[in-house]
């Protein structure tokens, strides 16, 4: 399956700490995308990393991709209460021609 699987399912940290979420997938990909969903809202695209990239940064976000291990990680540095949300990875491959989302990681940042 092209679907990504996020780990852990839930993560609770204190404000100011770093949060790391992992994603594993099973097929070859063209890119992998991370999304955030606040409770009761639509998903928001955070970052896209292509299969030929190993690391990408966007503000307090750092994404890594290891295609040999078929895994990716999302690091949020200096977390804030406003980062509380569910985070989803979505691998994309041309053979599948669409994104598929995992169950997500529920991140809670305590003030």
């Amino acid at each position: 399956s092209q679907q990504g699987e996020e780990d852990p399912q839930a993560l609770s940290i204190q404000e100011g700490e770093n949060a790391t979420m992992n994603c594993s997938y099973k097929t070859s990909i063209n890119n992998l995308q991370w999304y955030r969903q606040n409770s009761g809202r639509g998903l928001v695209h955070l970052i896209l990393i292509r299969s030929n990239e190993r690391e990408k940064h966007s503000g307090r976000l750092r994404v890594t991709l290891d295609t040999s291990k078929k895994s990716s990680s999302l690091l949020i540095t200096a977390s804030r209460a406003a980062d509380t949300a569910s985070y989803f990875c979505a691998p994309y491959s041309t053979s599948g021609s669409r994104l598929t989302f995992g169950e997500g990681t529920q991140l809670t940042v305590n003030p």
Partner: protein
Amino acid sequence: SQTIHQWPATLVQPVGSPLSLECTVEGTSNPNLYWYRQAAGRGLQLLFYSVGIGQISSEVPQNLSASRPQDRQFILSSKKLLLSDSGFYLCAWSATGHGSYEQYFGPGTRLTVT
């Protein structure tokens, strides 16, 4: 800039009643369009996607259907709702292509079938 609208925001419908959810996109042409459903605390299930007017691909066989009567309008329908149709319905669009671009989501419709 592009904007995606969904309505209604919430809906409570009895079992056996019809359904029509609408999604419209502004500020872009010929987008790929998607309907997802999300159960509480779960991931997204792709229901339908469309690469053009009248072109609908179904991912999950069930009592739901989708239509794309205009370039930037995507409608999700049912003739008779089931209890299992309850959930959070999300519409999304992406730029024309192979779907590899980022997707932009609407605010969602919370459907409760009673």
